């Protein structure tokens, strides 16, 4: 299933937990320090580094860019660390997040309430993901170095839908399906 970013409401409504999706288009990279800054901006009524409406944030800190490449290895970092900041960004119009690992109850509720979606990228396939990035530019907080906000253009970035607008959770569903409960393993 091919999905373009920024996300439309129709596209988001078509996604269900467990769907395999390829993302094409523009996504923004931000992690711990950038999230803290963005919430501070929201608190002060200052503009964010990018208009969040419909956009997708990718939690990632790349390895250095070798000569001839657009970006270094670029796999996801653990999403849970950004949980505290996420509901505010969803209220501000953010529609998608890519990371790895499950989200808190509060974030999952905010995802359903604000009709957004959380995707998991596979950890440790960072070279494969790097090759889906066709363009990368630093757009804010460059003084944060590896934690600066990047704007990426991606083609065929493979992800799995974890949390959809219907309350589905791929981590819960997966474990339920494959857990062995009968007999002695």
């Amino acid at each position, binding site marked *: 299933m091919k999905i373009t970013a920024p996300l439309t409401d129709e596209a988001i409504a078509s996604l269900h937990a467990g769907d395999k999706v390829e993302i094409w288009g523009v996504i923004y990279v931000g992690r711990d320090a950038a999230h803290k800054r963005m919430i501070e901006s929201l608190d002060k009524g200052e503009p964010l580094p990018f208009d969040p409406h419909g956009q997708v944030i990718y939690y990632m*800190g790349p390895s250095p860019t070798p000569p001839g490449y657009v970006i270094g290895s670029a796999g996801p970092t653990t999403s849970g660390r950004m949980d505290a900041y996420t509901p505010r960004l969803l209220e501000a119009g953010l529609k998608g997040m890519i990371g790895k*690992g499950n989200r808190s109850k509060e974030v999952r509720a905010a995802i359903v309430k604000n009709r957004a979606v959380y995707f998991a990228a*596979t950890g*440790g396939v960072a*070279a494969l993901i790097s090759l889906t990035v066709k363009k990368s530019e630093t757009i804010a907080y460059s003084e944060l170095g590896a934690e600066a906000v990047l704007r990426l253009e991606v083609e065929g970035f493979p992800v799995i839908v974890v949390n959809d607008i219907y309350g589905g959770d*791929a981590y819960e*569903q*997966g*474990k339920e399906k494959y857990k062995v409960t009968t007999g002695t*393993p």
Partner: protein
Amino acid sequence: MREIQAQDITETIARLAKEANLRLGEDVLARLRSARVVEPSPVGQEILDQILQNAEIAPQTGLPLCQDCGFAVVYADVGQDVHIVGGDLTTAVNEGIRRGYKEGYLRKSIVNHPFSTRDNTKDNAPCVLHTELVPGDQLKLTVMPKGGGCENMSYLKMLTPSAGRQGVVDFVVDSVERSGGNPCPPIIVGVGIGGTADQAMAIAKRSLLRQVGEPNPDPEVAGLEQELLRKVNATGLGPMALGGVTTALAVHIETYPAHIASMPVAVNLQCHSARWKSATL
């Protein structure tokens, strides 16, 4: 008495650091392939395919297997008849890590002042160095880039001896289950039983240097490895905890004699990007 130049140690460490971040061992790849054959979960299959594909892309492009190039854990087994000249071992090894991480475009992920400013050291040094004196006149060096995600999922419990074998089973399975997707399954579960608290953790990590799935030579311990592997894979976590039967590729248990009052059990998890390279000088 055999002389080894500190410079050669530095160059070897730099080379091992780069290779370990680019090339998975054949044993890891073989185990991933056999897991892919039996994994029934479609998402799990997709993830294992991506892992295997990534393992081909990294050495072809020079992009590291994972963007987290880890804490450099280094093992130096120094022969008693070796004389290191031209510098000291620790400095030579750290210099090698600096060089390897710079030349290999590897991520610098180490910070000073861990509980306050956490400012990046900018060169991925210092490493964590485990040195042992062994018989002979050779120097064996191993570099294991250990990712922060899986290392964060480390556990230690000082069980009472009365907890017995079942206590060990319950603790290890619980440790894997509560870790969820954080250590990037499919994992290798390193277990250390016995010794003191630090010894249990040290042997748990060293167990990760075995060929994947190689059993402990003691049949009683090997039996426990097999039981733990079955139970861990029965949790249903699967690849990246999205559901499946391949939560762990192997369980490696190392034991050490224990104090009459103690049964320390340490768990050190290795992610699927199980990276290490060795060389002997």
